[in-house]
């Protein structure tokens, strides 16, 4: 069965070459120029990475934090398919697009960060796998999740061709007509995979820093890192949905999606669970006093915790939840606080030995910035080419 037109999703009809498009394109070009430099001149020429800090912002932001910010698709899939919240379904495609970009660029920046990237093909040769490695698990899950996200996004692309009125590609239309119903049948399998994979690797992103042992400050070093990272990814995921939906409403001049404010109700529960584990663990390990000692690390801990707790606290009040402004503010606080936590685990709280210092170099920073710009750019272009945003008419009907 091929639907006549999608009841939920629609193309956002607007011109693609806007001023913000050019601004983002500029940053993307600078970023990719620096990536080119990295491949010609080597990692040392563009970054401040060292033997003490082999992982800089490319891993801390692009992989560890970027994938959490790309967890919107994961978080929403849990609500829709596990908690049976079908009324959020209109949001799923835009969330999947963000996830796809976030994860694809995480994989891409690993290729930038890998010293001997020419050995990366070994990843596709099972006899060379080291299946006991946490990094291997992260790599498999991220790669697999990219494929799953691409398949989840495929209906949007196919719909575009199915409903195409352009007579130039009759074969493509015919193909899309054939494949669409088949894909529809197996899609649920990929959706389940799409929920399983992030659960696995988001926790593994935490496990990776358990390996750092005493190099990671005791405020953050704990055996609970995996569960903390998993819950952290979830509330960042929901916050990102709010953030992104609000921003696209403003940028594209659409009405606010009120579903997001109901999603906001979930966040305080997750955050509360996270904070309880966080503080109970600190208390149990006897590092509560370290966390409040007032030194540099303690200040970082307090900043991230206040942002997360503050953002979540606001959302416990219906008054704030009803206001698009305050929901947006708390979502930003949660995104920043949650990301700060991940930065603390990967860079800020990490001290390999006396005397080591790290701060990203300018080209290093611009590579990350370029990838982020590319992500937003891709999102802006894709929603104007394929039915990804919620259908306003269908929306009204269901409301």
């Amino acid at each position, binding site marked *: 069965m091929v639907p006549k037109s999608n009841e939920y999703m629609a193309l956002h009809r607007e011109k693609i070459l806007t001023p913000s498009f050019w601004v983002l394109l500029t940053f993307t070009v600078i970023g990719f120029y620096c990536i080119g430099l990295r491949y010609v001149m080597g990692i040392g020429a563009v970054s401040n990475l060292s033997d003490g800090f082999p992982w800089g912002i490319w891993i801390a932001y692009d992989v560890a934090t970027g994938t959490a910010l790309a967890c919107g698709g994961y978080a929403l899939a849990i609500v829709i398919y596990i908690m049976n919240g079908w009324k959020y379904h209109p949001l799923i495609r835009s969330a999947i697009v963000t996830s796809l970009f976030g994860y694809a660029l995480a994989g891409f920046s690993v290729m930038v960060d890998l010293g001997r990237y020419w050995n990366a093909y070994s990843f596709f040769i099972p006899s060379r796998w080291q299946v006991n490695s946490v990094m291997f698990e992260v790599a498999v899950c991220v790669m697999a999740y990219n494929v799953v996200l691409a398949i989840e996004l495929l209906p949007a692309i196919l719909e575009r061709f199915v409903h195409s009125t352009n007579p130039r590609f009759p074969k493509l239309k015919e193909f899309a007509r054939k494949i669409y119903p088949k894909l529809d049948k197996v899609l649920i399998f990929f959706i389940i995979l799409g929920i399983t994979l992030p659960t696995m690797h988001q926790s593994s992103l935490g496990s990776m820093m358990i390996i750092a042992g005493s190099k990671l400050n005791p405020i953050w070093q704990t055996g609970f890192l995996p569960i903390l990272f998993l819950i952290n990814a979830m509330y960042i995921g929901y916050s990102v949905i709010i953030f992104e939906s609000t921003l696209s409403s403003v940028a594209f001049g659409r009405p606010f999606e009120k579903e997001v404010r109901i999603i906001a109700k979930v966040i305080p529960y997750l955050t509360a669970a996270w904070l309880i584990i966080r503080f109970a663990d600190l208390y149990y390990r006897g590092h509560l006093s370290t966390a409040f000692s007032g030194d540099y690390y303690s200040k970082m801990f307090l900043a991230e915790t206040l942002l997360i707790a503050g953002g979540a606290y606001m959302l416990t009040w219906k008054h704030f939840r009803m206001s698009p402004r305050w929901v947006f503010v708390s979502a930003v606080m949660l995104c920043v606080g949650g990301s700060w936590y991940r930065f603390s685990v990967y860079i800020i709280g990490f001290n390999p030995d006396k005397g080591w210092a*790290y701060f990203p170099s300018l080209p290093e920073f611009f590579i990350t910035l370029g990838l982020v710009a590319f992500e937003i750019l891709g999102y802006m272009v894709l929603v104007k080419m394929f039915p990804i945003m919620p259908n306003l008419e269908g929306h009204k009907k269901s409301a």
Partner: protein
Amino acid sequence: MSRNSLFGANVSRRDVLKFSVGVTALMGLPYSMHTAIADAATSDNRPPVIWLHFQECTGCSESLLRSDHPTPAALILDMISLDYHETLMVGSGHQAEKSLHDSMEANKGKYILIVEGAVPLAENGIYCKVGGKTAKDSLLEAAAGAAAVINIGTCSSFGGVQAAAPNPTQAVSAASLVKDKPVINVPGCPPSPYNLLATVLYILTLGKLPELDDKQRPVFAYGRKIHEHCERRPHFDAGRFAENFDDEGHRNGYCLYKLGCKGPATFANCSVQRFNDMGVWPVSMGHPCIGCTEPDVMFHLSIFDKVQVHNPTPPDFYPNANPETRGKGADPLTTGIVGLIGGAAIGASAMVAANLPKEENDEEDEA
């Protein structure tokens, strides 16, 4: 390969080459020399060797017999023509004396004389006699026809334990008595057998003596201090010392300097070449170096006395191994731009938030 070469008939070509390359490296010769070494080791040019024992414990011979490459049998039967060795030869009495005499006659000016043990001079040297001759007479007689004299062990090189105070037999080193022949000292108590082996092969291969230091020791083996290549050196540099046997530091494998290790004053390759073909040496087992290759250290200082350390830290012109700061930190331009972009992002978010409606009249869903 000759039957009468360094290796027996059942030794594989691979083993010959392995040994030759290893010994070439040990002597510090160019890599291309290993074929010459292999030629020397496999042709029938077994050097006649006369081995004399004086005041000693036979530890040096024992050490040599404990070497595995080659085995003792290959060594004394195939590698060298060991014509006279008081503790290894089968013959005894007049028969043994005759073989010594015959060999000295037949190989006059060609044989290598290896001396193990110190020579007593008190009361005309009556404290060490073999076959009715004093050690001094035997030594001078054998040395007269030798191509070179190799003193194995600290006793023949420097006098050793016999020459330690009060020295009742007035023992002196063999090295001090041989004046008109090239003398090589291979000290140690006992020395690594490979140092002797390498010295013999060097002479066989190149037909000349290896480079010697001021104490007549081959520089390839005695050119550097134990301390320079000690596996416990990082502990010394970091100030981690064992203070007593079996204390915490000793169990943790810390530096043994405070237990009297003579490594900083002792030139030898023990920390590199090791012993018994299995990579052990005294310091690796927790005992301080006793400085057995130095004439002024062993038997002159207590085992537990500390030696003067020269250059405890590397010279200033060496690159610093522990710099104050490592890795590149923040520079003003980058910090500024990162701050600017971060600030712009926060500012833009604030602008968006400010422009959002504060209230919306929609009822909240019941979900």
